[in-house]
C-alpha cells in the first residue's frame, strides 16, 4: 500500500528521518467505491427543546443523543465513559428525568425537553447542586461530575429533603474512579438545605514557636524551629494557623468549569477538519504478523489515512534487538496490541475502515497464566533477555538482571543477614499472599488529538505528564522538543497509567501527518482495559523473626508477579522501610505473560506489599498477645528516635484510635452473630520524590492580575488551587481565585509530572519562590508611590500597605502604577534544603467491616484515615484524595480483578459492568484526620497524598475481616466465595 515518495510530503521536518514507511495519504478523489460499506441510512431532521431553546438538528437514526450533543452540537459536557449504560457519566434530563445519553437515540427525542449539564445553571446563577458540589469539593478529575450533578439535580426536583440514603441511591448508577461519592452525598444534603456531618478533622491548629527558622516536627506534639532557610529562599512560613489562605479548606478554583461541563478534556477537543481514528488490534495474544492489506480500507470514501505500526512504545524491549531484526512488523505479544490505525471523516467510517484492514497472522503458542509462564516449557513472551528503559515518566526496570524463560530477576535488596536473624528469633512467622491484576480504569480513556502542521506538532493528550509526552513524541518523530506542544488542560483520571503519549499517540500523529489534518484517537473502553496499563499481580512469600517482645530480628520478602509484557510487578519498598529490622532481604522477579502492559498504579508495589506485611504484623501481634496497634508502636521505630515520619505515625495511631474507637475492638472471631463485625488497622508509607523538572513563571500584570505558568497539569487533585493558594498567600491577595493558572501546556516552563505524589513536592515551593521574587519586583516598582522603600511595604488581604498601618491601597490600584506592563519571575526547583534526604510520608487507616457469614459478603462500614502530607495546602482537596485512596483500596480489596480467558488470552471483563469498580452504595463512611508535619525541606514543605492514601486500605480491610471472622484471607480480591471457603476450611 505504501508509496515512500509520499513521505516527502511530510511537513516541517527538514532533516528528520522518518521510520514509518507505511503511512499513506489518501485523496478522496483517488479513493474508489468502498467494498463492504455499511449502507448509510437517511439523515432526519428532529426538533427538540435543548436547554430551554428550540433546536432543530439533522441526525442519522443511529446517532445516540450523546453523540449528537458532543459531535454535532459541540456540547461536550456530557461525557461518554462505559458506552453501554453501566456508568451514567452521560446523564442528561429528558423531560426532567435523568436518563443516559449513550443509550438514547437522538431521533426518539423529537419534541422532548432535554437539559444537559450546560443548561442547568440559569445564566451565571449556578444550580444549588452545582454550587454545593463546588463548596463540598464533590469532584476530583471532574469527568464523572456532569453526570453526577445531573443525577443529583434530578433527585432534588422529586425530593426536596433527601436523606443520605436517597442521595446514594440517586447516584447508585454513577461510577466515579477518583472516589467522590462521599462528597457528592454531602453536596446533595447541602443543596437541599441540610447540614452534612463533619468528616474532616485538622489535627491541630497550633501556632509555631517564635523564630525565623524553618519548621520541624508535627504540629500539636513536637514542633520546633530549625535553622533559617538558605540564602535566597523566602522566610519560613509559620504553621497553617498563621497563614491567611494556605491550609484553609478552599473550594477549587476550576470547580465552576467542572460542574458546568465547561472544562475541556482531551476527549472533548474538536478541531476544524478533525478526523476520527480507530485502531486495528491483534486478535491473537502471540503471533507474527505476516501481512497487512490496507487497500480496502484506503478505498473507502472518507478514509484519509492509514498507518501500520512499526514500533510499540509499551512494555519491555529485547536487550539484543537483533533478535527480531528483519521483521517488518512488531511481534504481537498480547491480544489487543495495536497493528494499524485508520483516520476517516466520521467515527462510523473509521470503524468500518478498521474492519476492512486485513491482517494475516501466524499465531504462536501463548501463556496468560502466571504460574504456567514460570515453567520451563512455557511459551516465551520474549525470545531473549529484556530491559525496560525509563520512558515516559516510568522508572523502568533495574538494568541487567538475569532472565530465564519468562522470568526476569530476581532483583535483590538486602541488609544484614536474614538467615542469622531468623535463627536468633524466638518467634518465626511466614505467610503467602496473592494480589490480582487491577486495571486503572480512568473514566476518560487514553486519547489524543494530534495536529501536525508545517510549523510544529500540537497534541492534546490525556496525560499526567505533558513533558514526558512531549519527549516521547519528539524522540519518535525526531523533532526538536521545541516544535512539539502538548496540551492537557483537564484530564479525566490517570492514576499512573498516563505518563506519555503512548503508541496510540504515535499512531495519531502519523495519521495527522499523512492526512494533513488533526486526528482524534481515543481508546474505547475495552481497549482501555486491555492495553492501557494495570497494576500487576503479585505472589509474595514473607518470613519474619521476632524476639519475645516483638522486636523484629529478620524480615524477608520473596515475590514474583506479572505485568504482562512489562516489568514492574514488585512489591515495592514497603517492607524494606517501614519497620526497623537489622536483617532484611527482598527478592523480586517479573514473570512475563502474553497480557497487556502494566503501568505505574497509585503507589505501585506498596499497595501489594502492605497487604502482605500488615497482615503478617497483625498475626505477630496475636501470637504475642499484644494489641496490633501497640505492636506497631513498638516496631515503628528507627535509628533516629525523632525520625519525623515515625513521629507523625505515632500521633496518627493515637488520634485515629481515639476517633475510631479502637478500644472497643473484640477478640478475633468472637462476634457470635451471623453478620459479624470486625475492625482492623494498617499503616502506610510512601517516599518523598523530588522532580527537579519543576519550574514556573509568576507574572503580575499592570491591571493587577496575577498568573502562574507551568507545564504541570492538574490530574484532579486540585494542583491548580493549591498553587493559586501559595501564590495568593505570598502576594497577599484576597483569595486563590485572584490567581489565573495557565498550566498543562508545554509552552510554559517545564513542570513535574502528576504522579508519585510528587507534584506539589516539586512545584509548590517553586511557585512560592517565583511569587516571592515577583513580590520583590512589584514592591520595587511601586514603592515610589508610597514614598517609602520597598522593604517598608507589605502585601496583605489584597492590599499594599506601609508596614504597621492598618489600611492600605488595593493591590489592583497600586499595580496600575507599575512602570512595566508586566513583570515576570521565574523559579526552578533546587534540591531540598540540605540535599534530598531519603524521606517519606504516610498515615494510618482504621477500617470496620461486616462479614455476612452466610453469603461471604464483606462490607466496609467505616474507615478513619489519618494522614500527613507535609504542609496540607488545601485540606479540602487533600480530604478528597484521601477519600479516593480509601475507595480505590476497598474496590481493590473486594471487587476488582482482571480476568483473562486461558483459551483465548482475551480479557473477559473489559467493560464497566463486568469489571467491578466500587459504587456509591458500596462506599463506607470515611473520616479523615490530617496532620501538619514539617521536615523543613523547602519554602512550602508540601508533599503529595494520592499514594499514601491508597496503601493501607486493603490491608486494614483484610485485618478487619480477620478480626470479624477469625480467619485470614491472604488473597485478593476477597470475594464472597473466598470468604466462605476460608470459613469452611476453618471449621473443618
Amino acid at each position, binding site marked *: 500500500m505504501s508509496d515512500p515518495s509520499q513521505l516527502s510530503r511530510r511537513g516541517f521536518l527538514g532533516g528528520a528521518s522518518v521510520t514509518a514507511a507505511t503511512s499513506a495519504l489518501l485523496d478522496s478523489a483517488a479513493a474508489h467505491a468502498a467494498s463492504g460499506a455499511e*449502507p448509510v441510512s437517511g439523515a432526519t431532521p428532529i426538533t427538540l427543546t435543548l436547554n430551554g431553546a428550540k433546536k432543530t438538528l439533522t441526525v442519522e437514526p443511529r446517532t445516540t443523543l450523546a453523540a449528537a450533543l458532543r459531535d454535532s452540537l459541540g456540547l461536550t459536557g456530557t461525557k461518554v465513559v462505559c458506552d453501554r449504560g453501566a456508568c451514567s457519566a452521560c446523564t442528561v434530563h429528558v423531560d426532567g428525568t435523568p436518563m443516559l445519553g449513550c443509550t438514547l437515540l437522538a431521533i426518539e427525542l423529537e419534541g422532548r425537553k432535554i437539559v444537559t449539564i450546560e443548561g442547568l445553571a440559569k445564566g451565571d446563577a449556578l444550580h444549588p447542586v452545582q454550587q454545593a458540589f463546588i463548596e463540598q469539593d464533590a469532584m476530583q478529575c471532574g469527568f464523572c461530575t456532569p453526570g453526577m450533578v445531573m443525577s443529583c439535580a434530578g433527585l432534588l426536583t422529586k425530593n426536596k429533603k433527601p436523606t443520605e440514603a436517597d442521595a446514594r441511591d440517586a447516584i447508585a448508577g454513577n461510577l466515579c474512579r477518583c472516589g467522590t461519592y462521599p462528597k457528592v452525598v454531602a453536596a446533595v444534603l447541602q443543596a437541599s438545605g441540610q447540614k452534612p456531618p463533619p468528616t474532616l478533622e485538622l489535627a491541630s491548629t497550633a501556632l509555631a514557636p517564635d523564630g525565623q527558622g524553618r519548621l520541624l516536627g508535627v504540629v500539636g506534639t513536637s514542633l520546633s524551629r530549625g535553622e533559617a532557610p538558605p540564602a535566597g529562599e523566602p522566610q519560613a512560613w509559620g504553621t497553617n494557623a498563621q497563614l491567611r489562605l494556605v491550609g484553609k479548606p478552599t473550594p477549587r478554583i476550576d470547580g465552576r468549569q467542572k460542574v458546568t461541563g465547561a472544562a475541556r478534556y482531551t476527549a472533548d477537543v474538536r478541531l476544524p477538519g478533525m478526523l476520527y481514528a480507530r485502531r486495528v488490534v491483534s486478535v491473537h495474544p502471540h503471533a507474527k504478523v505476516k501481512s497487512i492489506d490496507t487497500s480496502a480500507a484506503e478505498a473507502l470514501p472518507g478514509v484519509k489515512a492509514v498507518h501500520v505500526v512499526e514500533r510499540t512504545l509499551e512494555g519491555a524491549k529485547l536487550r539484543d534487538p537483533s533478535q527480531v531484526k528483519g521483521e517488518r512488523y512488531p511481534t504481537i505479544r498480547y491480544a489487543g496490541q495495536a497493528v494499524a490505525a485508520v483516520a476517516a471523516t466520521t467515527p*462510523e467510517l473509521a470503524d468500518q475502515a478498521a474492519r476492512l484492514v486485513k491482517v494475516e497472522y501466524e499465531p504462536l503458542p501463548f501463556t496468560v497464566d502466571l504460574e504456567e509462564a514460570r515453567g520451563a516449557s512455557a511459551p516465551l513472551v520474549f525470545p531473549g533477555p529484556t530491559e525496560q528503559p525509563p520512558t515516559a515518566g516510568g522508572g523502568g526496570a533495574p538494568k541487567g538482571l538475569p532472565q530465564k524463560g519468562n522470568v526476569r530477576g530476581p532483583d535483590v535488596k538486602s541488609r544484614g543477614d536474614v538467615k542469622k536473624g531468623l535463627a536468633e528469633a524466638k518467634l518465626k512467622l511466614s505467610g503467602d499472599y496473592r494480589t490480582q491484576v487491577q486495571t486503572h480504569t480512568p473514566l476518560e480513556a487514553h486519547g489524543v488529538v494530534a495536529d501536525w502542521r508545517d510549523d510544529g506538532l500540537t497534541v492534546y493528550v490525556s496525560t499526567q505528564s505533558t513533558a514526558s509526552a512531549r519527549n516521547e513524541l519528539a524522540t519518535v518523530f525526531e523533532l526538536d522538543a521545541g516544535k512539539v506542544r502538548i496540551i492537557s488542560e483537564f484530564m479525566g483520571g490517570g492514576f499512573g497509567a498516563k505518563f506519555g503519549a503512548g503508541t496510540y499517540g504515535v499512531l495519531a500523529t502519523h495519521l495527522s501527518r499523512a492526512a494533513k489534518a488533526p486526528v482524534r484517537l481515543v481508546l474505547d473502553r475495552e481497549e482501555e482495559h486491555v492495553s492501557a496499563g494495570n497494576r500487576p499481580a503479585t505472589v509474595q512469600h514473607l518470613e519474619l523473626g521476632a524476639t519475645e517482645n516483638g522486636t523484629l530480628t529478620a524480615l524477608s520478602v520473596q515475590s514474583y508477579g506479572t505485568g504482562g509484557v512489562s516489568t514492574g510487578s514488585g512489591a515495592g519498598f514497603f517492607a524494606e522501610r517501614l519497620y526497623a529490622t537489622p536483617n532484611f532481604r527482598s527478592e523480586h522477579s517479573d514473570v512475563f505473560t502474553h497480557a497487556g502492559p502494566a503501568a505505574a498504579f497509585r503507589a505501585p508495589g506498596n499497595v501489594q506489599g502492605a497487604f502482605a506485611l500488615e497482615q503478617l504484623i497483625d498475626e505477630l501481634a496475636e501470637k504475642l498477645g499484644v494489641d496490633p496497634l501497640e505492636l506497631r508502636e513498638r516496631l515503628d521505630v528507627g535509628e533516629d528516635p525523632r525520625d519525623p515520619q515515625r513521629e507523625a505515625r505515632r500521633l496518627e495511631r493515637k488520634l485515629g484510635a481515639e476517633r475510631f474507637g479502637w478500644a472497643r475492638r473484640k477478640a478475633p472471631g468472637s462476634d457470635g452473630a451471623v453478620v459479624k463485625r470486625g475492625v482492623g488497622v494498617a499503616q502506610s508509607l510512601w517516599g518523598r520524590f523530588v522532580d527537579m523538572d519543576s519550574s514556573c513563571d509568576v507574572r503580575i500584570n499592570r491591571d493587577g492580575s496575577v498568573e502562574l505558568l507551568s507545564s504541570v497539569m492538574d490530574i484532579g487533585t486540585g494542583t491548580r488551587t493549591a498553587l493559586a493558594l501559595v501564590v495568593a498567600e505570598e502576594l497577599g491577595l484576597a483569595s486563590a481565585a485572584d490567581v489565573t493558572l495557565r498550566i498543562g501546556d508545554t509552552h510554559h516552563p517545564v513542570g513535574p509530572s502528576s504522579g508519585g505524589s510528587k507534584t506539589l513536592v516539586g512545584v509548590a515551593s517553586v511557585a512560592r519562590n517565583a511569587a516571592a521574587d515577583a513580590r520583590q519586583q512589584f514592591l520595587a516598582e511601586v514603592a515610589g508611590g508610597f514614598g517609602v522603600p520597598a522593604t517598608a511595604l507589605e502585601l496583605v488581604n489584597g492590599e499594599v500597605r506601609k508596614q504597621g498601618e492598618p489600611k492600605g491601597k488595593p493591590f489592583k490600584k497600586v499595580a496600575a502604577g507599575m512602570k512595566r506592563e508586566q513583570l515576570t519571575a521565574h523559579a526552578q526547583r533546587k534540591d531540598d534544603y540540605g540535599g534530598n534526604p531519603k524521606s517519606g510520608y504516610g498515615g494510618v487507616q482504621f477500617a470496620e467491616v461486616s462479614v455476612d457469614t452466610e453469603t461471604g459478603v464483606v462490607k466496609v462500614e467505616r474507615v478513619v484515615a489519618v494522614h500527613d502530607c507535609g504542609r496540607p495546602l488545601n485540606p479540602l482537596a487533600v480530604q478528597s484524595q484521601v477519600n479516593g485512596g480509601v475507595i480505590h483500596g476497598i474496590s481493590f480489596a473486594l471487587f476488582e480483578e482482571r480476568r483473562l480467558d486461558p483459551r483465548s488470552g*482475551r480479557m473477559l471483563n473489559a467493560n464497566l459492568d463486568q469489571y467491578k469498580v466500587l459504587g456509591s452504595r458500596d462506599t463506607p463512611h470515611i473520616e479523615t484526620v490530617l496532620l501538619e508535619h514539617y521536615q523543613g525541606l523547602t519554602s512550602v514543605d508540601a508533599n503529595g497524598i494520592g499514594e499514601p492514601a491508597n496503601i493501607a486500605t486493603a490491608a486494614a480491610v483484610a485485618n478487619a475481616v480477620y478480626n470479624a471472622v477469625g480467619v485470614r484471607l491472604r488473597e485478593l480480591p476477597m470475594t464472597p466465595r473466598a470468604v466462605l471457603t476460608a470459613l469452611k476450611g476453618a471449621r473443618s
Partner: protein
Amino acid sequence: MLTLPPFQFHSPKSVAEALTLLEAHGAKAKLHAGGTDLVPNMKHRLFTPEHVIGLRDVAELHRIGERDGALAIGSMVTLADLARDERVRAIFPSLSSAAAQVAGPQLREMGTLGGNLALDTRCVYYNQTYFWRKALGYCLKKDGTVCHVVKGGQKCVAAASNDTAPVLLSLGATVRLQSPRGSRELPLDQFYVADGIRNTVLEPDELITEVRVLLPQGRLVTGYQKLRLRASIDYPALTVAVAAWLEKDGTAQWIRMVISALGARPHAVKRIEHLFGKPLDAAAIDELGQAAYKQCHPLTNINVDPGWRRLMIPVFVRRAWQQALAPGPQ
C-alpha cells in the same frame, strides 16, 4: 465511542401502527422499548436490524390499572413507574422490589416492563464488542457454532437476567402478545423457553402489549431476593422470587418459587406441592431451599463464581421467605 450500525427508525403512535410496521418489516425489525438492552447490544453488533420500531409514543401501552379482577400493566410502563406505583407496592411488593433493583436509577426511568420481560439473555462470551467476539470465533448464540461455556455444548446457556420475570412467574402472570396475525395471551411460564439463543416464544412480528396479574383473593405474601456483587448496577447473579397464598391459620394454600439468573430461563421450582396446606415454618422453608438447590446448576455464563451462586440458593430462598412472611409492610 462505539458506533451503531445503520437502520431506519419508526415511531408508531398506536399499537395498530406498530403492527403494520411489524407486518412490513418483521424479521428485519427490532422493537425498541427503553433501548437500554437493545442499544448496547447493537453497538456490539449483536443485532443489526434494518428497522427499529420505537414504542415510546404508543400511549396505550403506558397504562396501568385494574381490569377484570387483574392488574393490567402496559408493556411500556417504565420500571421506575412500576416500582413507584402504590397499588403494586401494596399488593405485589415483590414486583415493586424487583423493578426497583434493576440496574441503576437512570436505566429504570428508561427501561420498561415489556423490555425487561423480553430482555436478551446474557453471557460473558456474548455481551462483548464485535471485535472481541470475532477474536474468539464468535459463539453459538451469535454468528458462531461453538459454546465457550459448555465444551461441546449445543444449547445456549446464556443467563436470563431480568428481575421482573421470576417475580411475575411467581405471581402467575400472563402476557398478551399481538402480531399482525392476531393476539394471544400466554401464561408467563409458557413464554420462556430453555434456549439462550431465543429464550422466549415471541415471534419476530410479535409485540408484548400487556402483563396481567390476578388480584389476590386472600392473603398473598411475596418476596424477592437478588444476589449481585455490588449493591447497584450489576445484573443479578441469582434471583429468588417467592409467593404464597396463606390461610388464616398461616398454612400455605399454594406456594410458588422461581429461581432465575442462572440459566436461559427462569426456573419454577418443582415438586413442592406436598408442602401446600402446611405451615410455612422453618423446616418447610429449609425444604424449599433444598429443593431449589437440587434443581439448579449454574454455569460459568457470567463472571461470577457458579459454585457460589449455587450455594446461595438455599440462603436466598430462606431470606425471600423471611421477607415474605415478615409482619408489616414490606
